[in-house]
């Protein structure tokens, strides 16, 4: 009994008490310091890209943990982008996908990563996959189309993730439209996305004209005419990039195609009747 008492006393004196003292001191220090640093932490946190546990897990698998822990995630992301270019040159799509995910997790701010990543996924990877399958001559048109659609879908998911970080960025929306237009040859969907892009801030004027042209291409002449007349009225007079004269020309072309009587034709405000 005495021996047990001695052992427990030694355990308490040597381990438990110092541990309890340290923990209590740390807790006290934490309470004091967190109150002191709270506002500064909010400022630091507001300026940092959010990092989830999932993102940390991703980085752990790729040796970029130093970047996450060290704080220079931007630099690590930039270096990984260089590494990604090497994977792209070697046409290593598995590495490419993994690195794209990692880079955009570490630093989702530059649209450069998202747009170029989406282009790699949708334009380059299908070619690699077709080549892996034996080349364009070896696979059926159906299979080729399936690969292109699969990769385009991946690019759309990637760009959707991008839009969560840049909801007002017209370039990302336009990229979706371009993939529909150039890769999937889906004019209807492309037009839908060009229209979405045109409604975002700072979107160039030509996006609206592209939308109208796609409507024309689909044979939706009335819709294109209505859109262009509305567009013409909304364009500024003093901005040469608005190209109001080009829009007016297209309106007149559509009027001719639609055989609209002269007296019902669009008359821009400010122009007198001869």
């Amino acid at each position, binding site marked *: 009994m005495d021996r047990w008492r001695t052992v427990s006393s030694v355990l308490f004196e040597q381990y438990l008490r110092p541990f309890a003292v340290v923990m209590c*001191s740390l807790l006290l220090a934490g309470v004091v310091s967190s109150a002191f640093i709270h506002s500064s*932490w909010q400022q630091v946190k507001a*300026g*940092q890209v959010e990092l989830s546990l999932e993102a940390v897990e991703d980085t752990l698998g790729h040796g970029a943990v130093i970047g996450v822990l060290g704080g220079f995630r931007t630099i690590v992301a930039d270096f990984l982008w260089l590494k990604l270019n090497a994977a792209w040159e070697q046409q290593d799509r598995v590495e490419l996908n993994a690195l794209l995910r990692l880079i955009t997790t570490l630093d989702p701010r530059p649209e450069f990563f998202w747009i170029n990543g989406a282009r790699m996924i949708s334009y380059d990877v299908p070619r690699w996959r077709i080549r892996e399958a034996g080349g364009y001559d070896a696979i059926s048109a159906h299979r080729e189309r399936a690969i292109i659609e699969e990769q385009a879908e991946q690019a759309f998911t990637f760009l959707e993730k991008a839009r969560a970080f840049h909801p007002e960025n017209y370039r990302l929306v336009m990229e979706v439209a371009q993939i529909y237009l150039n890769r999937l040859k889906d004019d209807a969907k492309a037009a839908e996305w060009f229209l979405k892009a045109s409604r975002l801030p700072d979107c160039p004027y030509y996006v609206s004209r592209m939308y109208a042209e796609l409507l024309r291409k689909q044979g939706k002449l009335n819709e294109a005419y209505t859109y262009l007349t509305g567009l013409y009225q909304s364009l500024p007079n003093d901005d040469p990039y608005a190209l109001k004269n080009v829009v007016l020309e297209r309106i007149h072309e559509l009027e001719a195609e639609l055989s609209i009587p002269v007296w019902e034709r669009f008359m821009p405000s400010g122009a007198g009747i001869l």
Partner: protein
Amino acid sequence: MLNASEAFVDGRLVRYGDIAVFALLQWVKFGMIAGISLLVASFAQTNLYTVVVSFFVLLVCQLQYIALEAYAGIESAFASLLVRGLAMVFPNFQLFNVGDQLVYDVETVLPLVTVCKITVYGLFYMLFFLGLAQLNFRRREI
């Protein structure tokens, strides 16, 4: 490919003066890590134990804010209190990861007061850990 100058049109200008400030903050952080290592060493029996435990404490300190946020919506009052208590025990190293904000991001420049506060926070913990380590070493003969 998208032109890099277009992508970074808003500027990613390096402010070299702030690199020095960031370096100072890193030294303060290293001081805290050194303090933690000494505190662990004051308990430890082997060198390896000190290195491993110090590294894990470093990880916990670095990532504690994520855990705290992840458990912010926890329903159980006891579990919430426990997590908060644990978060209080470990200093927040993420505070020192302001390299991007100091050196690059011109839109959200960190105020000098914030940098000073982070430095004071680090110095406080550095001295605190060193004090605790010293206290423990005094009680140790072997």
